[in-house]
């Protein structure tokens, strides 16, 4: 969809409301997410306990579809054993 003629759909408004609901005063940005995502993905694969310092990566992944897409692709690689 191109933004020249916007008309928000119900799912888009829902997405906006959801983003607002998830907003915290302190959040990881995309660079911080990239810095920690390999560690987070390995924790997810092994079920190890997560360091509290990087726990807010989960919140960033809920808010940022691009970082989430890259994280899911990383899991795919790890699951393939590559």
């Amino acid at each position, binding site marked *: *969809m*191109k*933004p*020249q*003629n*916007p*008309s*928000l*759909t*119900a*799912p*888009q*408004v*829902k*997405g*906006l*409301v*959801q*983003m*607002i*609901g998830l*907003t915290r*005063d302190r*959040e990881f*940005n*995309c*660079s911080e997410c*990239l*810095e*920690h*995502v*390999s*560690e987070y*993905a*390995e924790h997810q694969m092994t079920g190890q306990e997560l360091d509290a310092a990087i726990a807010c990566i989960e919140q960033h992944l809920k808010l*940022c*579809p*691009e970082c989430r*897409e*890259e994280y899911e*692709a*990383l899991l*795919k*690689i*790890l699951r*393939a054993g*590559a």
Partner: protein
Amino acid sequence: MTDEEINWPETLRAQDSGQQAAAVDALRGVLLNGLRIALNNRPEVSEAQLEDFAQDALLRVLDRLDQFQGRSRFTTWAQAIALNTAFAELRRKRWRDVSLDALLTAGDQMAEPAILPDDVLGGDEDRTRLVNALRRAIAEELTPKQRAAILGELQEMPFNQITALLGTSRNAGYKLLHDARRALKNRLLEAGITGTDIQSAFTL
């Protein structure tokens, strides 16, 4: 030798040029293999593109070797950078025809009733109140750039593209969006719309 047994950062910095070149080649192979797996559901991505992504990613990884802190396997860290490189390029191509003017104009229209109809979440009174408050908050609390950035996000425009159009870094762009979300949230709270109200609007 397994991945765990190789000290990648040390080998990639080796004084012995033959050893270093071998490590660089091996890492390129690891990245290319990972990209093939990650993007195997995208038939539009050619082998030549995968090789370009792997090469670009390799250069980024080598440039950032000092930032690797050993909290994960080196190859997992490098794969994350490779995926970031590849997806950024794939997203950029999809949205390259959108201009800043178009994005800003569209963003300004976000507060208009036609864009956010009262009943967009359904005719329920609470939802209508939420949408009305949201429209006012968007109009009164956000800057044109914030409106444009939020609209771009909602329309699944790549974040790199949004920040490129707005002329900001990715981190500055994230802060722009974060400040916008916080302003909207605070305004909704001031209007008496609670977290529970927001949650209930999810069940469309």
